[in-house]
């Protein structure tokens, strides 16, 4: 881990200083390891109360309270980088069920921060869920709404998802995807498709600043109207009688 050596020494010294008993066990640190619940029976419950979203009457020991103050002061004087490292060290000292408690305390906190950053009345973070329901024409308009939405459409691979939805629900799309070979670009993960897709672009066709996601976005956005055109041609050929009937020898029951 890249960090100044003095900081790690400081942190260690501090944790020793704050142990409840002689620092023979690594678990006896500030926030209470598994050993603490035996020696100080109330600490687990206190910890949980502290971690819950609810204010509860606290019964921390005097000693803990005074030491906590001291430690928090030291903590706030460190850089953010050092603080994160210190928390990592602390977390490593704790056991699995404590991690669970911290997780349940941390999760709503992260969600809260995430939400509070949003424009109060906006829906931009829900854009992907919303845009995954719209049709092709609307998807085009949505790309024009603003930069953010365009990047949602690109990052969310929404053109690919739209084509996949059509293939799942429309038998003509399904049949064509087999026959025309573009099925190979569907229903597979982004990472597996990036090479095949990049190879469909002629050398120099993509500007050099275009990343993998953007390249895939452009590929699917272009594929969509190609498929639509293909379907139009087939339908008009059929209607205008420009078709050739062929006899196919069938052996299977269900293809009669």
């Amino acid at each position, binding site marked *: 881990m890249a960090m100044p050596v003095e900081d790690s020494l400081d942190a260690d010294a501090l944790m020793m200083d704050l142990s409840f008993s002689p620092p023979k066990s690594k678990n006896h640190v500030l926030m209470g390891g598994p050993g603490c619940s035996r020696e100080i029976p109330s600490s687990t419950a206190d910890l949980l109360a502290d971690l819950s979203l609810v204010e509860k009457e606290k019964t921390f020991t005097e000693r803990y309270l005074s030491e906590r103050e001291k430690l928090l002061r030291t903590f706030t004087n460190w850089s953010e980088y050092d603080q994160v490292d210190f928390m990592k060290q602390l977390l490593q000292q704790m056991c699995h069920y404590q991690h669970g408690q911290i997780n349940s305390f941390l999760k709503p906190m992260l969600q809260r921060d995430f*939400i509070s950053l949003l424009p109060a009345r906006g829906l931009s973070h829900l854009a992907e869920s919303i845009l995954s329901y*719209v049709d092709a024409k609307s998807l085009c308009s949505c790309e024009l709404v603003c930069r953010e939405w365009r990047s949602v459409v690109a990052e969310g691979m929404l053109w690919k998802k739209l084509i996949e939805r059509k293939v799942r629900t429309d038998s003509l799309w399904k049949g064509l995807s087999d026959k025309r070979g573009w099925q190979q670009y569907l229903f597979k993960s982004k990472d597996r498709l990036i090479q095949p897709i990049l190879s469909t672009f002629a050398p120099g066709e993509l500007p050099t600043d275009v990343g993998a996601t953007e390249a895939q976005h452009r590929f699917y956005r272009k594929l969509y109207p190609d498929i*639509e055109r293909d379907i139009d041609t087939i339908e008009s050929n059929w209607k205008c009688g420009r078709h050739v009937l062929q006899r196919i020898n069938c052996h299977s029951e269900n293809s009669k």
Partner: protein
Amino acid sequence: MIQLCSNDDPPVSFTVPRKAVELSKTIKTMLEDLEGFDMEQTPIPLPNVDAPTLELIVKWVEQHQDDPPPVEKPRVEDDDSDDSDADDDQEPEVVIPEWDKKFLPTDDEQKNQLFKLLNAANYLEIKPLLDIGCKYVADKISGQTVEWVRDYLNMENDYTPEEEAKLKEEIAWAEGL
């Protein structure tokens, strides 16, 4: 019964059956983590939800508390999709039930209430509510002009005229759809 508190000052509290409250994955997880505590006696503060929005949420979860739980992703039955790492989520078609159609704040002057409701459903992880809400908004913006969509969603055009012209050209084919 579980008590939920809005973020207003003073907070407005709602008493909701535990079963209904558990439609929120966020709260369900929290209650499970706090197993052993008397959560009936401890109101749960919801720092992102105001009273009118919480009232809607409570109405919705009470209405839907007896819904069968959403089926865990059924394995794809199509024999041709053998890609185990396919990243498509096979969501079934979202249909907005009649009751929900009446429930959603759909008048244009209630637009902001609808957005607050969706934000709250997102924060509380109430997926079925989020799904129908997003579907509603998607239907609403479908077939509308770019300007209309921007105005409806309180968004600003941050493209330069050149970028906008270039993008319009790229998607010119959509005009014919």
